[in-house]
């Protein structure tokens, strides 16, 4: 084990790197030339024409490209990565999450945290689970790594909230037990491929 990080006691010191941003114009002439070049290009009018065309189509031809959000919502792809859902087992209603901690480990923005304990039935119980959505970048790694398909991305993309803690607890993400029959099997990021049965070798069983 390397001891390097034990030896650095200057914990307040940051190491900043500078990046190359190119040259700024030098002198009045170069500045003037840059202004002229930017002002006299025709692209402005191309953009204005596109806007005008779309406006005519929408107003007179009924060709509307937008929906009346929030009263209307577009269907969303199953591969879309929005606020996470925690699923239950359909048969028993128990949590699918086994507390393996892989999502916590793989999370690149380090926003998942869980506490586990040894419960009365000698099983591993997830006693607390949170995702800090202020930090989550919705990369989908957690859903991909989950061995139980317990954490998945749901379709709830409205993640504005009055409080930070809005929907970051396990219970908020968990399928409510009374709507278990409505729980959708996830076929997005990290789900089992449709031909999975054909591609795996079966383990022999002596029963």
């Amino acid at each position, binding site marked *: 084990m390397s001891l390097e990080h*034990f030896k650095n006691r200057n914990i307040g010191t940051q190491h900043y790197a500078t990046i190359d941003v190119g040259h700024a114009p030098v002198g009045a002439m170069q500045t003037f030339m840059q202004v002229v070049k930017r002002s006299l290009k025709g692209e402005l009018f191309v953009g204005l024409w596109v806007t005008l065309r779309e406006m005519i189509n929408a107003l007179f031809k009924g060709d509307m490209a937008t929906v009346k959000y929030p009263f209307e919502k577009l269907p969303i792809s199953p591969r879309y990565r929005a606020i996470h859902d925690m699923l239950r087992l359909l048969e028993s209603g128990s949590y699918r999450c086994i507390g*393996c901690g892989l999502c916590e480990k793989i999370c690149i923005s380090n926003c998942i945290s869980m506490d586990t304990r040894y419960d009365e039935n*000698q099983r*591993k119980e997830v006693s607390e689970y949170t995702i800090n959505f202020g930090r989550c970048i919705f990369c989908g790694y957690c859903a991909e790594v989950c061995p139980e398909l317990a954490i998945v991305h749901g379709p709830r993309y409205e993640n504005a909230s009055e409080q930070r803690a809005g929907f970051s607890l396990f219970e908020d993400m968990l399928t409510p037990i009374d709507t278990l029959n409505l729980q959708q099997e996830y076929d997005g990021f990290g789900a089992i491929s449709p031909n999975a049965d054909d591609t795996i070798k079966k383990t*022999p069983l002596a029963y």
Partner: protein
Amino acid sequence: MSEVQTVENMVNITIDGVQHQAKEGEYILNAARANDVFIPAICYLTRCSPTLACRICLVEADGKQVYSCNAKVKEGMEVTTSTPTILEERRAIMEVYDVNHPLQCGVCDKSGECELQNYTLEIAVDSQSYMIPDTKRETTNWSSVLHYDPGLCIVCERCTTVCKDMIGDAAITTAKRGGADLDKGYKESMPKDAYAMWNKLQKSVIAPSNGTEFTNCSDCGECVAVCPVGALVSRDFVYKSNAWELKRIPAVAAHSSDGAHIYYEVKHGSIEDRTEKIYRVTNEWNFVSLDGSARFAYDFENRGADNTGVKKDSMAFAAALEAFKKAETVRFNAMITNEEALMLQTLKEKMGLKLYNPEVRAFQKFLGYYAAASGSSLYSTDTDTIMKKSDFVIAVGTALRHDSPALKYAFNNVQKLNKGAGLYFHPITDTLIAGFGKSVETFTHKVGLEEAVLYLILDLFADKEKLPADVKAYIDSFKTTQTETITEKVEKTIKEMVLNAETGEEEEVSKKVKEDVQKEITVTTNGLVDLLGGDSSTFDDVFAKMMSKKEAFSLMVGEDFYFHPQAENLAKLVALIEATCVMDVVMTPPKSNALGVALICDLDDTATGYTVGYNENGDFRLSALGDGDLDMPAMNQQEGTLTSMSKRVLPTNAALEYEGYELNDIVKALVGAPEQTIEWTELLPLSKGFKALAFDSLPNAFTNDGRDNRGYVLDTKKEEAQLPAVAYFDSNAVLEGEIAYRCNPARQFNDFTDKSHEIFETFSLYASPAKAESLGEKVEVVFENGSIVLDVVVDTKMQGDIVKIPDFKSAKDVYGLFGASRYQTVTIKKV
């Protein structure tokens, strides 16, 4: 160990076509590891005997398949680590291990550091060819710390091996379990070794060796450490955290003087509480074995009185400065780093404070006597060297099981691995030690006869030419010779003339006849053996057997000697033994950093006036226990060095945050000091053998071949010295009556071990089963200068009438009760 590898004991071998050098007589596996060559192996432990349970370390040596953990290197040997047949065996073995092994790695505590996972990936097992019906196996708790899940167990027997060969408790063993028989067809179709391994695996499980559901052991947890899978886990750690979440901080075990290398593994407390906590302690189990205090007494950090963490309390700090200015004495114990000891010594030099440390003072004096008598500033060996070299160990004046776990492990390991022998002299019979090996003799002698023990050792081991004439004569004076007549059966050949019936001629026939012959012999009775509670009539034969083929002898000396009225004479005798016998000596510093304190501080014999106590009683208390007038960082919250029994100066790192004041701040304000505590490291006194090395330059790891490469070894200064003039002993100066012995239960060393939540040994009177029955449940022990009321607890491995009274609670001032001796005559009253 830092022994020089000489060219003579090295041999040349070729592994996979590459030339390597290996130590003669070493196993191929170890030789390969030392040379950075990978051979897979699951069941082998470096310092224990090979078990041949996993059979995965198969290699080809000189064209023959051998198990590399069990075959020794030879000059010119050619080793191939993988051939197609070997790869086939290994693949089959790993597949068998995966049969019915639960696949819920997600809930397993070992996931991420599991050898079964690793080797399954390494051997690339991606399909299964074998099957057998599974057997239901229930999880059990073996003790207050051990949790066993047989469903996960692969019966590699590492736990039983380490418990027997290293720890010495032999508390667990393989047991039979029910289970289906293997399909007959497998015998033909499977690789041979995999089949044999499976056959055994399918029938076995691990269980306590005493036949009950619970282990009766020292709860060191080494079995947990060596378990390659999640079958054995500390009860406290079950399902608490994944291995990869824990940050490992290399440190030194703080409580005993073994100076074991450990890792504190830290993580935030929970989702709400983000302050870091220690979750467990792990070790490099191939190179170092921990005792229970090192492994389980880890959460002794100072969190302040209200358990919320220590902040800088400038009022208390000012009061501490005032207290130091007012004080005449600083009282402290061995639980202190070298740097802090040097700070206190600096305070003594600049402010004239007295340093009072009864725990270490006796040891310091003893070291002084020894140095004066032997000319050597320090004793000659250490535990690691004993384990690697010795084949005859003698322990005197130490309750091996309690005082120094590392020495107990070494004593046991020598018996098991070096085909060794051992002598154990102590007033309290320890049934465990007697069972370490067939060649272990234990002597239960009377308290006060420690000198006689050393004279017996001189008699048994000394080169009589070298011994001073008076000592030789004195030893001989204990011997009496008697002439005895014994009857021996002697075989005689008698010739007879017999008439041959066939030929009718007389023939000469020789016949063998046994005849009783009276013989006179001289029998020497060694009075020393009888005096020490042995049987002199049988001892000679027993000892002759013990001595056969023995070459390297070691003597372990313990705390009884330091707290002995005749300590000086004992030290001289030890020096004499070292000079006249071929024998190395190791001394157990009593607790933690006693050796460091003994070398750095000039300790005083008495405390006077206003006293500042550092983790001890005093008028003003600096304390890392959270209950003092000013908080101090505990040993797991500070960096610094500790001096271990192995004479090494070992760096330890801070595992947990500490925001309060340290001793360095006080010294800085009083007399001036460097900015940081660790800047004292290079100032440690060169005259005492320390080196001027900066803390950050100290290495802290083992090498691949198991060499301890941590910190640095103290220089031992040697001068030519005359043989010391030793005094005779008074065989009447023995303690009689009810005797109490100051001795902590295993795993308890000080207030800090007591504070840890995984240490359960109580502050009680420990007695043998028979004695405990006669004492009842609760007793008052009356000393000359006070008394103490204690519960009675049975120690099943003790025999005899002497009782043990622990000293780990400094508030109880047991040192004060016992005074200058570890043994005291007491009156025990039932309460």
